[in-house]
């Protein structure tokens, strides 16, 4: 290679920057704190100055005078040698010669290529090349003495574009149609068809989900569920409707800030809410707020700029011109979301963390309108009810007078139960005493529950009174059956049940409690609080220990409902008394229960009416003073069922129906800018608790400024990215799509375009494509529609029309040796499919695939224990696979739990989606082989493919095998292949004919039943043949 360098003019960006960046910039680059010897080599203005040593590092045209050259050529053990031995950096002999040559040639600097706007380069002349891409590729191949391969055959090509555009293999009829269609534009029409498929958006979404760190869980410790699939649906739709990339960008980064944004545009901002949210107990909110914002900065920087912004979090960037200050100025665009930055309190239970929006579908929208109306209607009833308050009050006063009775006949507040039965669930024995109380004897279990049943004749029920009566048979204070005579009653349930099973039981909703005595820390009101969780072990409750109660014969506690319930005919009163405290044996020992029809205001009340009102009620209405009347009015309004309270209850009821319905309407998290931005500071060493200088929003100086007239906020930033005057955005996207189609990007480091980026293998092509993407001139029409600016479908189709893309992927050995990664593209792309596509393809070829697009995540087969072996927190611990179509949906819909992601996807190099992940590795491991051989999905798909072979492949073995091979590979097998398949099949058929049980087992995997009309031995043998087919290298590979 040295001779090549000697001949041609060296270029700073291509030849020199990578050497300096890797070997020198760490100490002689942008980071001021790390800078050694006062020397900075990344800036032209500094490189020629005298450094601290007193000599200039570089003297143009004079390598002998250049300190840099003398230092790097020193022997390794020399103290002055650069880079220093302990730095871990080194410069090869060849690189040393290149640096020397460059200085000889005049040491011309260039800015970093990726920070200079791309210019439309001239399309080179290359013989035979018609497509601009081919011209660029062919030119380089000519220099290398290589040739493109012939066009791939039609079957191969159709499979390639189908997988690239929809992620699904072509159907057999699609293959046949394409082969038969000999018209000149047959290929282009296939592209148009596939670009219009609803599955195009699904295929396009896969890599974007990695960048967006999309998941269905919150990450971190408990890793409970969240709902973000509406954003995923937005993404699929955006691709399908070919939203131009500038809009695609603006809506995801700042859709909420657009003027009058549509619901869709707001949903789009979920991109930057897909980050993890920490909900660990003890987390420090300030710390994780900062991490949340930085995650957003990092993700945005990697996705649109392919820059590692967060390298500048703790110090100035070591390689790229981003200072720590600039990092936090960029941070300031993303820190004013209306959020806490951590998981919401109810986030562990699957609720989304604010800000989020509810996104009803059309049907739900209709229902919401109806419900809103019924709330309004109910509210208008309140006004009407107000008018009825005066007569109602008069009526009540009359009723109350009757209830009070005369002076000499006390009213009956509490009534005895009739013919009641008492059963201890724990096995104590209860006997009724003369005074009507029940005394417990015999066994005393640690936590007993008593059930009291009594036929109920009254028309109303308002509450119950429990009397605890001391008994000489008890110890200590003699109220409970424990060692110290205490009890802890933790729960009380009062309800009406009916013999008629169809009638629902009615629970009396208790809301007031009062006791004649209660132990400190153990009030009777605790029993009301425990109502929602009666059986919870370790509850507190009403207890009576202390010196006072021992003097009393009986202690009382009453429990009253807010509103009485009307009692239908045939009701039975059921009362359950719970003792679930941590103190064993603390069960109430002897008790009596009475009930009240009307509300009783307090334990010492003589009637249901408060003492202070009794005299007022007895007065004639006309004798009441205004103050007295007000007192009664107030009581009537707040404590007695009245027209307004009834109307309000109806409003509450319809609101509850509304709330219940809204709870079912899915929500998705969004960005919502606070009215006033939060302050941002430089954080010393990037630590949340070490803020220093306050900074405002600003873009890195090395990149273009904000376009004129744009607001200096998140929206402005989004528009800046796609203004068309930006060096990175278009290049980064074009490079990513190139990487997806060809396996490696034009810039191999698709994740980093900073100065450590690899020099593009076809720099002029990259720039040409980037300019073309933003301002198209040559992009093709799709279904007759002309290309628009930032046209994603247009750019993909454009690439696919090139010969470069369409050529055969097989090539001479020497080509694989010379260019193992296929950077030069002297052959077509050939590499393993993503795990998602491997599975989707198996489902599609076997006919199992459910092609429904969008919707909530699904739960396909997963081995037991993947979620539960390492986590017992949160709501995602017990995985239950779906029963029906959820088993066979496309893999991109598989429920994604970050800390235990779908294992068969991880095995095929999917990231765990904890953070933005710009590029998957592509490995080839035995664990992948095991998954494809043994995972139930593939075994079931093999069986289904076998059924298709038998049912759609005619009756001849070779025809059936041909059908299977075509379904799996989209092409026809040659004779040799068929013979190999036939041999294997026939051997296995003999085996399964002799082993019936094994045959039945082999065809019984998965939820789908095997076709009963097919012979089990036959089907089992074909199933294994299908398993061979689905494991073929060419099946799991795009070629």
């Amino acid at each position: 290679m040295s001779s090549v360098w000697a001949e041609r003019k060296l270029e700073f960006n291509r030849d020199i920057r990578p050497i300096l960046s890797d070997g020198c910039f760490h100490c002689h680059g942008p980071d001021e704190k790390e800078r050694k010897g006062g020397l900075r080599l990344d800036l032209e203005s500094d490189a020629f100055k005298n450094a601290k040593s007193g000599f200039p590092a570089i003297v143009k045209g004079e390598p002998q005078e250049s300190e840099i050259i003398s230092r790097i050529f020193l022997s390794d053990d020399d103290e002055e040698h650069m880079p220093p031995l302990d730095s871990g950096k080194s410069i090869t002999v060849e690189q040393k010669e290149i640096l020397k040559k460059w200085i000889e040639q005049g040491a011309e600097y260039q800015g970093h290529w990726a920070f200079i706007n791309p210019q439309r380069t001239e399309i080179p002349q290359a013989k035979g090349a018609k497509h601009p891409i081919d011209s660029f590729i062919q030119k380089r191949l000519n220099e290398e003495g290589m040739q493109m391969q012939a066009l791939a055959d039609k079957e191969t090509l159709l499979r390639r574009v189908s997988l690239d555009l929809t992620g699904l293999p072509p159907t057999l009829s699609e293959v046949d149609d394409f082969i038969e269609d000999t018209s000149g534009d047959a290929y282009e029409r296939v592209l148009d068809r596939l670009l219009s498929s609803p599955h195009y958006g699904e295929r396009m979404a896969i890599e974007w989900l990695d960048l967006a760190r999309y998941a269905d869980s919150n990450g971190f410790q408990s890793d409970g569920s969240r709902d973000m699939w509406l954003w995923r649906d937005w993404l699929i739709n955006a691709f399908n409707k070919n939203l131009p990339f500038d809009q695609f960008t603006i809506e995801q980064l700042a859709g909420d800030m657009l003027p009058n944004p549509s619901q869709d545009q707001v949903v789009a901002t979920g991109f930057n809410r897909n980050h993890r949210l920490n909900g660990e107990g003890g987390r420090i909110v300030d710390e994780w707020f900062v991490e949340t914002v930085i995650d957003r900065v990092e993700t945005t920087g990697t996705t649109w700029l392919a820059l590692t912004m967060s390298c500048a979090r703790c110090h100035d960037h070591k390689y790229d011109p981003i200072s720590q200050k600039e990092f936090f100025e960029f941070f300031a665009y993303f820190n004013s979301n209306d959020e806490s930055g951590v998981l919401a309190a109810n986030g562990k239970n699957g609720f989304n963390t604010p800000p989020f929006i509810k996104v009803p579908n059309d049907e739900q929208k209709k229902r919401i309108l109806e419900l809103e109306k019924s709330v309004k209607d109910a509210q208008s009833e309140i006004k009407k009810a107000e008018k009825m308050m005066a007569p109602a009050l008069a009526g009540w006063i009359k009723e109350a007078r009757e209830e009070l009775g005369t002076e000499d006949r006390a009213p009956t507040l509490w009534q005895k139960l009739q013919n009641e039965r008492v059963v201890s669930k724990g096995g104590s024995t209860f006997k009724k005493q003369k005074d009507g109380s029940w005394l417990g004897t015999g066994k005393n279990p640690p936590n007993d529950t008593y059930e009291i049943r009594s036929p109920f004749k009254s028309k109303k029920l308002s509450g119950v009174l429990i009397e605890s009566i001391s008994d000489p048979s008890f110890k200590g204070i003699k109220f409970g059956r424990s060692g110290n005579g205490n009890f802890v009653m933790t729960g009380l349930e009062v309800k009406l049940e009916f013999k008629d099973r169809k009638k629902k039981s009615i629970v009396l909703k208790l809301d007031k409690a009062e006791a004649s005595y209660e132990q400190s820390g153990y009030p009777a009101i605790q029993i009301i609080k425990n109502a929602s969780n009666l059986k919870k072990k370790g509850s507190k409750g009403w207890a009576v220990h202390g010196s006072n109660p021992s003097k009393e014969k009986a202690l009382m506690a009453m429990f009253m409902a807010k509103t009485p319930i009307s009692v239908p005919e045939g009701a039975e009163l059921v009362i359950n008394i719970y003792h679930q405290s941590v103190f064993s044996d603390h069960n109430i020992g002897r008790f009596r229960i009475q009930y009240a029809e009307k509300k009783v205001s307090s334990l010492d009340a003589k009637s249901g009416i408060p003492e202070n009102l009794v005299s007022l009620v007895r007065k004639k209405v006309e004798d009441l003073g205004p103050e007295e009347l007000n007192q009664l009015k107030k009581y009537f309004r707040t404590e007695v069922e009245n027209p307004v309270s009834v109307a309000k209850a109806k409003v509450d009821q319809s609101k509850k129906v509304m709330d219940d319905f809204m709870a079912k309407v899915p929500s998705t998290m969004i960005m919502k800018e606070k009215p006033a931005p939060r302050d941002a500071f430089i954080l010393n060493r990037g630590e949340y608790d070490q803020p220093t200088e306050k900074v405002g929003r600003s873009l890195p100086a090395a990149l273009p400024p904000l376009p004129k007239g744009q607001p200096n906020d998140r929206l402005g930033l989004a528009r800046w990215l796609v203004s068309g005057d930006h060096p990175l955005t278009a290049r980064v996207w074009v490079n990513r799509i190139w990487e997806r189609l060809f396996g490696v990007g034009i810039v191999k480091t698709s994740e980093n375009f900073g100065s450590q980026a690899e020099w593009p293998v076809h720099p002029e092509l990259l720039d040409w494509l980037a300019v073309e993407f933003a301002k198209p001139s040559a992009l093709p029409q799709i279904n007759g529609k002309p290309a628009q600016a930032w046209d994603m479908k247009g750019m993909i189709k454009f690439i696919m029309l090139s010969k470069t893309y369409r050529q055969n992927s097989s090539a001479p050995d020497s080509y694989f040796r010379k260019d193992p990664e296929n950077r030069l593209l002297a052959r077509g792309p050939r590499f393993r499919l993503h795990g998602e596509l491997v599975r989707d393809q198996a489902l599609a070829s076997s006919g199992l695939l459910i092609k429904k697009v969008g919707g909530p995540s699904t739960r396909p087969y997963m081995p037991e224990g993947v979620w539960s072996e390492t986590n017992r927190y949160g709501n995602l611990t017990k995985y239950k696979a779906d029963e029906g179509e959820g088993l066979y949906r496309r893999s991109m819909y598989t429920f994604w739990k970050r800390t235990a992601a779908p294992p068969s996807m991880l095995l095929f190099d999917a990231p765990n989606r904890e953070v933005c992940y710009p590029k998957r590795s592509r490995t080839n491991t035995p664990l992948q082989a095991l998954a494809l051989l043994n995972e139930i999905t593939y075994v079931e798909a093999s069986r289904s493919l076998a059924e298709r072979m038998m049912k759609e492949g005619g009756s001849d073995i070779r025809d059936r095998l041909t059908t299977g091979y075509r379904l799996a590979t989209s092409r026809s097998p040659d004779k040799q292949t068929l013979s190999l398949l036939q041999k294997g099949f026939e051997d296995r058929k003999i085996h399964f004919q002799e082993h019936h049980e094994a045959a039945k087992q082999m065809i019984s995997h998965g939820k789908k039943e095997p076709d009963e009309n097919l012979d089990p031995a036959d089907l089992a043998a074909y199933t294994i043949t299908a398993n061979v087919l689905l494991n073929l290298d060419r099946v799991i590979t795009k070629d």
Partner: protein
Amino acid sequence: MNHFNQLLTSKTNLSSAQDFLNRRIFLRNGAAALSATALAGLLSSQKAQAKDPGLQGFPNFPAKAKRVIYLFQSGAPSQMDLFDPKPGMEKVRGEDLPESIRKGQRLTTMTSGQKNFPVAPSIFKFARFGQSGQWMSDVLPHLSKQADELCFIKSMHTEAINHDPAITFCQTGHQLAGRPSIGSWLSYGLGTENAELPSYVVLTSWGTGRPNDQPLYDRLWGAGFLPTQHQGVKFRNSGDPVLYLSDPKGMNRSIRRDMLDELAMLNRKDHLLVKDPEIDARISQYEMAFRMQTSVPELTDVSKEPKHILDSYGPDVLKPGTYAANCLLARRMAERDVRCIQLFHMGWDHHGGLPNAIKGQCRDVDQPTAALIKDLKQRGLLEDTLIVWGGEFGRTIYSQGKLTETNYGRDHHPRCFTIFMAGAGIKKGMSYGATDDYCYNITENPVHVHDLNATIMHLMGVDHKKLTYPFQGRDFRLTDIHGHLIKDILS
């Protein structure tokens, strides 16, 4: 390392090609449509990928340890109740932690709102054990008998204060998700010794001291940005030990063998045509998968272990998914040269009810850990096996919640904690580093998590500064830009 290059340079595995030829079922039965030469072509160039030799130049120097068994105690064991006695605390029982000790250092929000911070002396009794006189408390009766094998580091400290970031930090050198784990780094740098087993295996167990404690996460053994084949393979506690290992019902070994031969021939045929070396690699991965289907069950089958060995690991040894069962598996993996074996035992997060909970945890780990050390030693494996035992941070001397005579809890404490190491290259019967009277701050020889990881790498023959991976323009390494070798503990 470039996968293509690696494959191109991999040597033909002759014995496996021979195996293939010997399975002449196909030839024996004949296949009329195939010409003899074509068939020979399909059969003869069968290659198998040799075991991954790791990176060139690694190990950087002769390794003291061929393998590491890292016994991670998830949740953070209390150092002052197990290893770092503070007898002076009894005198200040219940008194507030002095500000001169706390020095305004941050607390978790679980206790930062507490009105006071009552000092809670350990209720456990400490004594010196072995000739080396190592301090240990009475909840570790078995381990204390191994005191002379152990090297305690009492001056560990870390940066995170919550579990998720802290355990992620121990495993990957970074608090946030995304970086490769220590086992993945070792696999990447050093490759495998045993091609039929993964180079990095993870085993997990639930503690009985606090049964529903802190969870674990895939990322703790994930490969981050390293090629995914270096991610830890978690052996499962139910079903197949390795995912998808068993053939489906109805399939037997001979059918599997035949179908893999058929698959290989079809792939080989494509390779002759397409020339893509990746096809070759795929064929050998299927062969490897087939062999793993034997080697893994053989590894996990403990039925031939003698009774006295089983007994030594304690009563839980035959219960799959217990720490004891995992310790025995760890020994069997060590015998088979698995490079990095990592156990995670959950249940050490004792915010309340610590005395009882820690007893349960020690019942889980005390005897099996001691047995593992003894067992390795008697087999001569302790000499080249490094053992590390420890959690993600320490616990506070003050009680979280109410302090009583018999009960207390302790909050997270990143400022100091204790771990121990044993085996290859480690000084025996040693204690390194010290903490103040309140077990709150380090007074001598602080050891950062990066230092520990640098030292583990060193013992494995890796200079932690040299094992780097370029990602997003930067050379990343396990120890970030930190890490110092703890020379004083090396034998």
